[in-house]
């Protein structure tokens, strides 16, 4: 019968393809590369991997990618099954956990041989160190950043947010922005009272750390009460969105109140400008987080937006390190990757790609250059449980926002809960 004929032929074809694929896989050293990100990143990453296999015919690279939301679950599951991909994209918030539990390969002995870190500044290298050893290599430099609707700011006659705008100034200006808008359902700022990075910058402006070098929560109950009170005041004067609007913001590009057109100002990361601009009609710009009165420095810091790490379980250590080195230090790879993951840490790569950058990418580069003189050093690493503290912060800010607790009560409750979470690990 005709249908069976077709089915059989298709089956034969598939089998042949499978055999061919297996033959190829057997001939080559197969490396698995795993990253999070969107379509744009997947395209750039796959092209870069293809370029590498062209010049290294004995290597086959199998790319795997998922969104940030599922990334860590899947990586942890693979790690549990001793089946971690050889080269993985890594985040500053997770590298300590993976490195200290023996999940990652220490890279120090490869530097200068398989791993080319020439032209990397100290900040970029230090960002990938855990307990003095290198476990991750920067794929791009970024910092926290306000992303705001510059076009509306200009149209409304509001002054752009040029450093330094103190937290007090910021409140006044955002309230003025809401008034100037004269529109129902649109406010000046996002409610960033539940944002970990915003809190961290605010605390560091006060001379505190979110986490001390000993891995304890670094702020007092009074600090936290002040923080919650600041945002309560922001809501009271109409400077930021009300709690029921903020509650729908999942802290990502697509659901942020900035993208939804409910606020002009969002708290984000500098490398996300490209992502935000893609889904916002108005022209966006970057600005530093607000400054602390009397402190000439910002609590912000430059950090690797993401890194590459090697699984401790990889069977091809040298080859995996070579592939990693290609991604971070090769100029041809740099041209393909662009600044989509942040500004490349390698000076050589930066110089080669500079002429080809578009307006958004140029703005990201100039932002990083602008803030360099006023940023602070990298903070101590976050302890285990830091991720859960972020959820706690979000929830506690909501508690104050919906008037279920006063800022003072929320401050002491938060400190108690955060301490409990961290001690539990």
């Amino acid at each position, binding site marked *: 019968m005709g249908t069976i004929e077709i089915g059989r032929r298709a089956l034969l074809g598939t089998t042949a393809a499978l055999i061919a694929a297996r033959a190829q896989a057997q001939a080559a050293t197969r490396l698995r590369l795993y990253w999070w990100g969107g379509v744009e990143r997947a395209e750039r990453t796959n092209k870069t991997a293809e370029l590498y296999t062209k010049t290294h015919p004995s290597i086959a690279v199998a790319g795997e990618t998922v969104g940030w939301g599922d990334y860590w*679950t899947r990586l*942890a599951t693979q790690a549990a099954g001793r089946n971690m991909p050889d080269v993985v994209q890594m985040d500053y918030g997770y590298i300590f956990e993976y490195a200290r*539990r023996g999940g990652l390969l220490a890279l120090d002995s490869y530097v200068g041989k398989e791993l080319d870190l020439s032209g990397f500044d100290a900040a970029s290298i230090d960002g990938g160190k855990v307990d003095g050893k290198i476990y991750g290599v920067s794929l791009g430099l970024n910092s926290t950043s306000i992303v705001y609707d510059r076009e509306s700011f200009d149209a409304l006659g509001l002054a752009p947010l040029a450093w330094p705008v103190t937290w007090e100034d910021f409140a006044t200006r955002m309230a003025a922005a809401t008034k100037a808008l004269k529109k129902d*359902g649109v406010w000046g700022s996002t409610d960033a009272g539940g944002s970990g990075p915003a809190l961290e910058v605010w605390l560091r402006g006060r001379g505190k750390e979110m986490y001390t070098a000993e891995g304890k929560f670094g702020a007092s109950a009074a600090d936290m009460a002040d923080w919650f009170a600041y945002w309560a005041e922001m809501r009271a004067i109409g400077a930021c969105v009300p709690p029921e609007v903020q*509650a*729908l913001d999942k802290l990502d590009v697509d659901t942020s109140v900035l993208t939804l057109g409910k606020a002009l100002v969002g708290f984000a990361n500098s490398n996300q400008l490209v992502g935000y601009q893609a889904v916002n009609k108005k022209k966006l710009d970057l600005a530093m987080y607000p400054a602390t009165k009397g402190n000439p420095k910002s609590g912000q810091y430059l950090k690797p937006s993401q890194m590459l790490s090697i699984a401790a379980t990889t069977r091809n250590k040298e080859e995996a390190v070579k592939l990693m080195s290609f991604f971070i230090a090769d100029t041809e790879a740099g041209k393909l990757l662009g600044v989509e993951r942040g500004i490349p840490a390698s000076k050589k790569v930066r110089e080669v790609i500079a002429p080809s950058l578009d307006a958004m990418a140029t703005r990201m580069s100039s932002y990083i250059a602008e803030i360099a003189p006023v940023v602070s050093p990298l903070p101590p690493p976050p302890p285990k449980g830091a*991720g859960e503290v972020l959820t706690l912060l979000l*929830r506690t800010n909501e508690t104050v926002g*919906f008037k*279920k607790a006063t800022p003072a009560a929320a401050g002491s409750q938060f400190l108690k809960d955060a301490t409990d979470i961290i001690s539990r690990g």
Partner: protein
Amino acid sequence: MAGRPTARRRGIPAGYIFLLPWFLGFFGLTLGPALASLALSFTNYDLIGTPGWVGLANYVRILTADSKVAESVRVTLLYVALSVPFKLGFALAIAMILNRGIAGLPLYRALFYLPSLLGASVAIATLWRTVFSGDGLLNKVLLQFGIHGPSWVSDPDTAIYTLVALSVWQFGSPMIIFLAGLRQLPRDIYEAASLDGATPWYQFWRITTPLLTPVIFFNLVVQTIDAFKAFTPAFIISGGTGGPINATLFYTLYLYQEAFGYLRMGYAAALAWLLVIAIAGVTALAFLSARRWVHYEA
């Protein structure tokens, strides 16, 4: 083939071979992992490191020291207590209407069943989030009547009720079962009752309800277990946080957060086993109470 004894005997090993996929699935994918999770619930397993034995520590913490457990149990019980009766009531009411022999019954039946098919899906939860948000469909309709509605899904005082409404809307499967039950009720009893002058309301309470108790009981048990296990709607509507302020933090959602958010697999396994025990307990209670109110013989 089945008629001849030899063939039948030969068929026995074949039968087991046909059952093999199910056995493999049951032992490999259900029973095995379930027992493994029981063992893990006594450890501090975190997916990456090797599990270390902690004895009853997980259970002790859950039962005595974890305030989020108390919160999530409260949210879950509220959800079960509201969604199950409303859903069953609604399903029965629609089934009674459909049972009156209206034209186009198969069409209506299919239409009413549709939400149940879509119900557990991510798309519907996302739709729900949009309908009940501040400038969502519901508030736009309310505005026509001059009512300014709140942002239902993101207000901690109302968020749980949007989830209850979502559950009630998926009344299709109990409705179909009720409808089948109603179809089997003997007509002559109603005729006799009508002749004796019983009002429809009286007939409903004195004839329909008692005769239908086995079906009600079945639906009650199934829906209660389902409600305890509800996860997807809360996960999607709150973006996985159980927010605002833990107002939609179902027990299952908290379990998920502990397991996949914070990698406390041992602790989450203990949470899961307590849920199993709780559901078994509630079901056992339902069966005990059934002796008092379920009538199996007309």
